[in-house]
């Protein structure tokens, strides 16, 4: 018998993944467009990329956890089709922004 509900972590970390994929691209643009942002990130850990990775992963974990606490600990209420669209859309958008930024803007 089919059971079409997913765990709350699946929904919350899926949404967090989509958000962080776009955040990752936005951070690339901010870092490449502003020397003060790049310099600040360099100062925090000694290398801008290390800070970038730690920041994006920390947001992924915290946002995923926070979303799973929503709605009295039941997590976000969206359909699985919407979740798949959100994950795929966020990942594709994030990667296309990075590829396009270095191709055209940088």
């Amino acid at each position, binding site marked *: *018998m*089919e*059971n*079409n*509900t*997913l*765990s709350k*972590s*699946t929904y919350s*970390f*899926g949404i967090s*993944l989509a958000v*962080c*994929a776009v955040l*990752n*691209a936005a951070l*690339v643009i901010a870092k490449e467009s502003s020397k003060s942002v790049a310099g600040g990130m360099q100062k925090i850990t000694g*290398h801008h*990329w*290390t800070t*970038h*990775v730690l920041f*994006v*992963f920390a947001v*992924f974990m915290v946002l995923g956890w926070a979303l799973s606490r929503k709605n009295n600990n039941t997590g976000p209420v969206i359909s*699985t*089709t919407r*979740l*798949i669209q959100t*994950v*795929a859309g966020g*990942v594709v958008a*994030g*990667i296309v922004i*990075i*590829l396009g930024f*270095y*191709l055209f803007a*940088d």
Partner: protein
Amino acid sequence: MIEAILMVHVLFGVGCVLSAMWVLADSLNASQANASRIKWLSRATALCMWLAFLVGGYWYVVFYHTDKAIILKGPWPFAHNYFMETKEHFVITLLLLASYLPIAASNNLAANKDARRLVRCVAAMVVVVALMAEGHGSLIAAGVKVGLLTNPH
């Protein structure tokens, strides 16, 4: 010996591609019989990606500046200016995707069509993005090679 770090990086990258491909193939015919294997392979995908990422990241932060100088002086500066710059950033998304795969695969795939669709989507994206990273890596290595051939040190 230092170059062995890069070989380990590629080895785990290939491990990530192969295990994600296996998850994708198994999830097309998910049943109680292969449910445990899908869960373990999705964990193997995440583990391989983390190891490839940590080893490659260590190389990038500590040793890459030498390769970068060779590439930029050589005939293929785009190997750094485009391929390394993009790779070092989109692999962060790949790391998150690979980390998410075991979460998606933790649902009951045998009895849940939506969970199967999600796992197939995530595994397919891991395969495509990881292959893209492998391709970028090979172009970066070729950039160093043509740089050394043009300006022997």
